[in-house]
């Protein structure tokens, strides 16, 4: 396919988050913007957006949730007509919620994702990683992204929701439709609708055949101020589980595998020193933070000299913030025992990723299990690694040999 997009004139005034070279490696671009006289860039592309790149600015924006709202959280505007129809109001609470509703939207799901609550998925995640490795270990080669990373979060999430594991490929397709091919409006609409219709059928089925111990049933039976929560909330959280819980963690695991394939010294350090793991996982999350969220400006405001207008979109480039040399020494370097690491891979403020403890667990188990079974491995050919980017950055194909 020929790339017909207009060449980028200047990153400061015309950045294109879906430019193939930016998708594959956004860090030089972030750095160029961050170190310029204009560290908050602007583009007219995709109906316009602002792109802050300094840690301090990204964190300040995240804290000002009344001005920088979550009415729109994707890096592109929603497809026209998305809000219409019977379930047009289904969002992805609490990511898409603002106070005051944000409080109960978030309060209800936080206990499900607390560290002590997600610990119970550790063994099943390890078993799942081992089963994936069983499939390819004798071949001496595997796609660390498509054969491994891609399958882990979707199965963990399906298990939590209480839906059949054979939906894996379908879920992955829907999530990619919503998050990855964002310039394909029809695909986005179709994928979102498919997610809502699927979970609507799951809810209906549970009304007829009540179940226990799955998140959909728990949500359906949850009451707020004496009343069952609305169906839009139940469907919204299911939507969130897929859209925020699959592509994101899969991308993080994939990037970590890509890194480890190129760094035998880091594999060795991790194999030899169990005590290194906690800081190592945080450091890998810092350097390979996959997610950029968006905010919508509530009212005209000047922020760091930028004339932001009501309705403007601001891209919360957490991956750029995490590599700001003002905040992190040698920011592009992976230092597994980094002592000071206030990274914002999971955001900052009231929208801190609700699933962060689960994501951490999945990344750690995925890497531990792989290193135990396949201690030595390398990229087949760095030039053939393919990437997704824009909203979520990570490898989609990453062939390794061992």
């Amino acid at each position, binding site marked *: 396919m020929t790339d017909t997009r207009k060449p980028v004139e200047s990153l400061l005034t015309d950045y294109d988050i879906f430019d193939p070279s930016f998708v594959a490696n956004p860090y030089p671009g972030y750095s160029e913007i961050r170190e310029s006289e204009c560290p908050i860039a602007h583009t007219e592309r995709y109906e316009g957006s602002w792109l802050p790149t300094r840690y301090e600015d990204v964190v300040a924006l995240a804290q000002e949730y009344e001005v920088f709202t979550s009415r729109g959280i994707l890096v592109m505007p929603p497809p026209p007509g998305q809000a219409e129809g019977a379930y047009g109001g289904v969002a992805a609470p609490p990511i898409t919620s603002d106070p005051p509703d944000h409080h109960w939207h978030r309060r209800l799901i*936080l206990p499900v994702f607390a*560290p*002590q*609550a997600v610990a119970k998925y550790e063994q099943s995640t390890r078993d799942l990683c081992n089963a994936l490795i069983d499939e390819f270990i004798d071949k001496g080669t595997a796609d660390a992204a498509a054969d491994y990373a891609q399958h882990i979060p979707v199965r963990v999430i399906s298990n939590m929701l209480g839906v059949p594991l054979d939906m894996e490929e379908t879920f992955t397709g829907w999530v990619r439709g919503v998050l990855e091919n964002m310039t394909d409006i029809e695909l986005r609409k179709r994928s979102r609708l498919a997610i809502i219709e699927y979970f609507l059928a799951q809810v209906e089925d549970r009304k007829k055949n009540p179940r226990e111990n799955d998140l959909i049933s728990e949500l359906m039976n949850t009451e707020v101020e004496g009343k069952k929560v609305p169906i839009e909330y139940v469907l919204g959280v299911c939507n969130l589980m897929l859209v925020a819980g699959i592509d994101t963690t899969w991308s993080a695991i994939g990037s970590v595998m890509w890194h480890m394939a190129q760094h035998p010294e880091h594999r060795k350090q991790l194999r030899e020193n169990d005590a290194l793991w906690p800081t190592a996982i*945080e450091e890998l999350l810092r350097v390979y933070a996959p997610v950029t969220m968006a905010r919508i400006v509530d009212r005209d405001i000047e922020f760091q000299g930028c004339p932001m207008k009501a309705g403007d979109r601001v891209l919360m480039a957490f991956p750029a913030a995490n590599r700001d040399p003002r905040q992190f020494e040698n920011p592009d370097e992976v230092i597994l025992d980094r002592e000071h690491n*206030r990274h914002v891979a999971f955001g900052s403020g009231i929208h801190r990723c609700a699933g*962060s*403890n689960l994501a951490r667990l999945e990344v750690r188990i995925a890497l531990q299990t792989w290193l135990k079974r396949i201690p030595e491995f390398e990229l087949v050919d760095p030039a053939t690694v393919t990437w997704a980017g824009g909203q979520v950055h990570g490898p989609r194909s990453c062939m390794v040999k061992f």
Partner: protein
Amino acid sequence: MGSCHGHQMCAIAAPEVFGSDELGNAKVLITGDIPAELEGKARRAEANCPERAIIISE
């Protein structure tokens, strides 16, 4: 100083000092002064909180 939003980076840096409440927000596990042997870890927790919600006083 910010407020805790449940990043849990304090509990990762100093699990003897910080834990998690039912919602996943930080819970201080010790009462009174930080024991000398845990001071380094506690300082590290302070330096790793993305919300700058931890202040250790002398």
